[in-house]
């Protein structure tokens, strides 16, 4: 019996999130007297696969099959379910991101497993197996029992403190034996956002709203993000107006992110916006209206004009980076 973790790589490197879920799984394994097997699909070097041991995996199943690059959900779910069966996994864990959300529900059907998505921490109880998740876009939490023998969960990022160990991992090649006819998706075109910090992976996110006044005013935010190594985000009206790309829109109808710190400039803090950022460890608001609702959720704030504040922050960030 084991716990199976679905890991994702980005150009052959594991995402921070993958390390976090392996570590999360290891903490659960300890309580359940179980062990962690990570499943990796794609071309990842042995060094990188070995690294999963530092987060508590004892075994890695490595699937190297280029056909999976089309991300056919049906074939992927089949592969994960076969790995889970091979490992007699009682619990299968995915990240609560695009890929996890796409595959986990399918896997739950294949394994006759109950599923809970967006789990925000270690199980609150093991008998019966009970997990906590956010509902109503962060306005409440629910405790949910999974009644089946095999269980599937997707894990909300940044809700677990990573623990490092030094396990030795056993790396095995795994062939789920998926037939060609399961691969039906044809990718006609891929557009990669290059050279930028991946928004959903970023530890620092700098975000602008309608208070930034227009598309020509983002230079300061870009500079600040560059110095701090931050990702850039925006509110919905900003992407709707075409000031910034849709890729950067966060909120209930955009991306859902959970960085260590989210710094919002000229964003009022509408409930639908907060739905996408409320899991951030710290929220910082710069807004000229002291009554703006964002201040109700912010940890730090400046009541003032973003255009006066940004140059000072750039200067301070430069000084900080020069000495640290």
């Amino acid at each position, binding site marked *: 019996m084991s716990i199976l973790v679905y890991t994702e790589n980005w150009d052959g490197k594991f995402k921070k999130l993958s390390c976090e879920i392996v570590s999360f799984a290891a903490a659960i394994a300890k309580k359940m007297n179980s062990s962690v097997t990570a499943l990796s699909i794609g071309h990842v070097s042995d060094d990188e696969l070995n690294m999963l041991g530092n987060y508590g995996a004892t075994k890695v199943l490595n699937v190297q099959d280029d056909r999976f690059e089309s991300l056919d959900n049906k074939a992927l779910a089949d592969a994960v379910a076969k790995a889970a069966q091979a490992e007699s996994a009682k619990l299968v864990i995915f990240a609560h991101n695009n890929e996890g959300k796409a595959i986990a529900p399918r896997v739950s059907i294949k394994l006759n497993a109950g599923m809970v998505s967006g789990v925000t921490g270690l199980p609150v109880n093991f008998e019966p197996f009970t997990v906590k998740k956010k509902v109503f876009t962060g306005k409440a939490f629910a405790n949910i029992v999974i009644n089946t023998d095999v269980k599937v969960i997707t894990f909300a990022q940044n809700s677990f403190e990573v623990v490092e160990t030094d396990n030795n991992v056993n790396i095995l090649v795994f062939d789920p034996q998926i037939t060609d006819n399961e691969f039906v998706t044809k990718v006609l075109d891929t*557009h*990669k956002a290059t050279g930028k910090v991946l928004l959903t992976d970023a530890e620092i996110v700098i975000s602008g709203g309608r208070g930034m006044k227009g598309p020509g005013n983002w230079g300061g935010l870009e500079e600040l993000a560059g110095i701090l190594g931050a990702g850039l985000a925006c509110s919905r009206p900003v992407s709707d107006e075409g000031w910034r790309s849709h890729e950067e829109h966060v909120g209930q109808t955009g991306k859902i992110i959970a960085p260590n710190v989210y710094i919002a400039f000229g964003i009022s803090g509408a409930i639908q916006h907060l739905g996408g950022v409320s899991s951030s460890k710290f929220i910082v608001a710069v807004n000229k209206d002291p009554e703006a609702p964002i201040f109700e959720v912010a940890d730090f704030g400046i009541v003032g004009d973003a255009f*006066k504040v940004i140059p000072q922050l750039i200067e301070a960030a430069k000084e900080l980076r020069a000495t640290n």
Partner: protein
Amino acid sequence: MKILVLISNVPDTTTKVRLTGDNKAFDTTGIQWIINPWDELALTRAVELKEAGGVEKITVANVGSKITESTLRKALAVGADDAFRIDAEPSDAYYVAKQLMQVAGSYDLIMAGIEASDYNGSGVGGMLAEMLGINSVSAVSGVDIENGELKIRRDLDGASQVLSIPTPVLIIVQKGIAIDPRIPAMRGIMMARKKNLNVLPAIDATARTEFLNYELPAPKAACKIVDEDNAKELITLLHEDAKVI
């Protein structure tokens, strides 16, 4: 092409969440119900595709009690041709997908939302596709029909792709699939009255998960305010106190 749009009935997104006395349930008194925002966008795109030709029929389906009928009528007013309501309490994603199996068998394209804005389950679409044994594409931000074939845009973390995929297929849609949701026009509302809203009884199925109780988030500590003219202090606080930069 025949399209099925799955419709979840949810509280208005600005609803303040209140719990019943023992925290066992969400208090629904006085709630305004709406079409789940992503389902509304999915339906909007389906109607746009029908107007462009190439779609024979749009059906909408919901698993819910009688209170969801006004939401389904609205979907008919926006442009769906007929509707199914499966008369059951939607207790979990598995249970809902099982119920939807009653009606989902004969469509070329099924559209579901990326999550319902109430319980944020992100489960029904993928589960239904697996039960039907058909393919699914997630995080879809665009769909077109070209010469009777589907062209789908999907977002990945850090990339977007254009795909072609054979039917039948279930797509799980998100932002971008349509820009503004369609508002029903007077004519649509009149026509919706004559359209079929079929009610089916629930089939036997057992939910696999169970909501025990709810909690409201702990109140947050007051925001620490830094003076506008001394903004540099903010960087110091984030570095030294919060230790996040």
